[in-house]
């Protein structure tokens, strides 16, 4: 009940003396979406200081990768952001392709876009569901989101053999071709997702509780967002037009027509709406990709998977993962394992401004501000 050093208790406005209260929120708190802790200093219910504490899920993924071959790290990347294994695979193989100069066949590029956008769909749907759960809508929105996610995971299972730990992409392509009828099933799921979104939006967007809890809460100014390296929907909610799919045009994203939604206020409501609008844009990309996908090889015949020894050098590759900029920085010394293997985790770096967004808000708002950032602890702690 004693204020930590360096923190001044605000002057008492009445005769009742009041002290600051330090609360350790987490690592087992249900709203932290994993084993994450925030040491919150409270004045009444108002946050005056917030210190995030990391490391509960740390297994030194980078060190493990520096002792393994390039190929052996692909299944480990599934476990970074364990919701979105496909995009993690993509960021890693993209960096290795940059390091080795490998080309990717057309069909494989289309498959990558399709699975990555499907991943974005269910990641954003689940995020919206969890966020609503944090606001007190217990169960219902989340179960709707999970119902849709299940359909996409069924697609992933028939494609890769695994629902979540897909281990699907390879340097220069993908591991296996689409099964018979997969594209038709995917088209059905995409068509169904559109009507799910209509339903979801009609239910929630104008909801009074959602608006009252989220509008004007956790505002992130654009200048601070850029300087603090916030990426993904959180950045675009603050009005900064920066989507790596547009900026880098990695893969074949220059072939698709889609727009980048931007927020105006940078509050929790804008971050929620970003997810909804981005799902609509992902559906547009999916519609085009499922229509245009050509026949052909799914992996570059020159691609060497086992005992890959890139020439000495380094490469940094990045993609727009559902959470933000996911990058891999690789240094090769000519050996069969990377000399340096670094993951640039969007979840961790987006937390840099957590305290700035929470100061002055009630402790109940901390829960939804954290929920709107969208973190996965497998990626934060690595």
């Amino acid at each position, binding site marked *: 009940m004693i204020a930590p050093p360096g923190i001044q208790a605000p002057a008492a406005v009445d005769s009742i003396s009041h002290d600051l209260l330090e609360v350790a929120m987490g690592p087992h708190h249900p709203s932290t979406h994993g084993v994450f802790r925030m040491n919150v200093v409270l004045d009444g219910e108002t946050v005056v200081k917030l210190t995030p504490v*990391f*490391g509960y899920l*740390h297994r*030194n993924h*980078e*060190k493990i990768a520096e002792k393994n071959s390039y190929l052996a790290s692909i299944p480990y990347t599934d476990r970074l952001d364990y919701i979105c294994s496909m995009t993690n695979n993509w960021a890693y193989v993209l960096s290795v392709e*940059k*390091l*080795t*100069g490998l080309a990717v066949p057309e069909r494989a590029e289309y498959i990558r876009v399709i699975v990555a956008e499907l991943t974005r769909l269910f990641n954003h749907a689940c995020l919206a569901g969890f966020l609503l759960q944090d606001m007190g809508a217990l169960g219902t929105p989340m179960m709707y989101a999970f119902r849709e996610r299940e359909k996409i995971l069924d697609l992933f299972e028939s494609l890769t053999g695994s629902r979540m730990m897909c281990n699907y992409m390879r340097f220069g392509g993908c591991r296996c071709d689409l099964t018979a009828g997969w594209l038709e099933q995917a088209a059905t799921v995409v068509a169904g997702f559109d009507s799910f979104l209509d339903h979801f939006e009609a239910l929630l967007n104008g909801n009074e509780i959602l608006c009252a809890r989220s509008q004007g809460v956790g505002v992130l100014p654009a200048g*601070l967002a*850029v*300087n*603090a*390296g*916030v*990426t993904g929907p959180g950045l675009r909610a603050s009005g*900064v037009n*920066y989507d790596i799919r547009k*900026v880098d045009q990695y893969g074949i994203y220059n072939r698709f027509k889609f727009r980048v939604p931007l927020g105006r206020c940078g509050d929790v409501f804008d971050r929620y709406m970003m997810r909804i609008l981005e799902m609509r844009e992902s559906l547009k990309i999916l519609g085009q990709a499922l229509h245009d996908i050509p026949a052909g090889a799914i992996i570059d015949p020159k691609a060497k998977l086992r005992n890959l020894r*890139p*020439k*000495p*050098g*380094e*490469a*940094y*590759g*990045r993609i727009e993962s559902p959470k933000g*900029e996911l*990058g891999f*920085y690789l*240094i*090769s010394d000519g050996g069969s394992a990377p*000399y*340096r293997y*670094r993951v*640039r985790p969007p979840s*961790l*770096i987006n*937390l*840099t*401004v957590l305290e700035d967004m929470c100061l002055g808000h009630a402790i109940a708002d901390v829960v939804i501000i954290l929920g709107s950032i969208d973190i996965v602890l497998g990626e934060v*702690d*690595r």
Partner: protein
Amino acid sequence: MQTPEQIKDRILAAFPDAQVEVIPNGSPASQPSLLLAPTQARQIAKFLRDDPALRFDYASNATGVDWPEKTVKEKVKRKKVVDGVENETEELVERKTPAFLEAVYHLYSMALGRGPLVIRLRTANRADNAALPSLTPIWRSCEFQEREIFDLFGIFFQGHPDLRRILMWDNFVDHPMRKDYVPADAAEVLP
């Protein structure tokens, strides 16, 4: 898109006494980097961020690399006079590369849609008190990443607002990402 050489010239125009070196990159990614002297790094970083033609407003990735001392064997041709006859012989010479820790930053410009510009800072040695200036005052995105470099590589960042361990626990002693790190018996290190 400016090349690192052009950016180097621009830095030298603003800071005539700056030491900037372009480090080539052998991979097809063609991302050469600029090696900055640690003493001038902060003001050059500020220049890179604020200069209207560069505007690297976004430091995406910051990480460490450990380069321990390495013995490189090289063949050197020497002329030797044996019994009055000059012969050219090849000798195997061992050379030691200097040991240092490195901090690598990947900069992008959100305003101009450019990047990456890779900048590197090197410590003088790999000792326990190896230090570099922190770039967190320039780009806040480095805050947690520099803490991670400090935690896992053991580089002290001078001027960092909150330099503590981030992933390992506070009374952990070693730096696990160094190449010579030997993990202790798990039963001994559990907190």
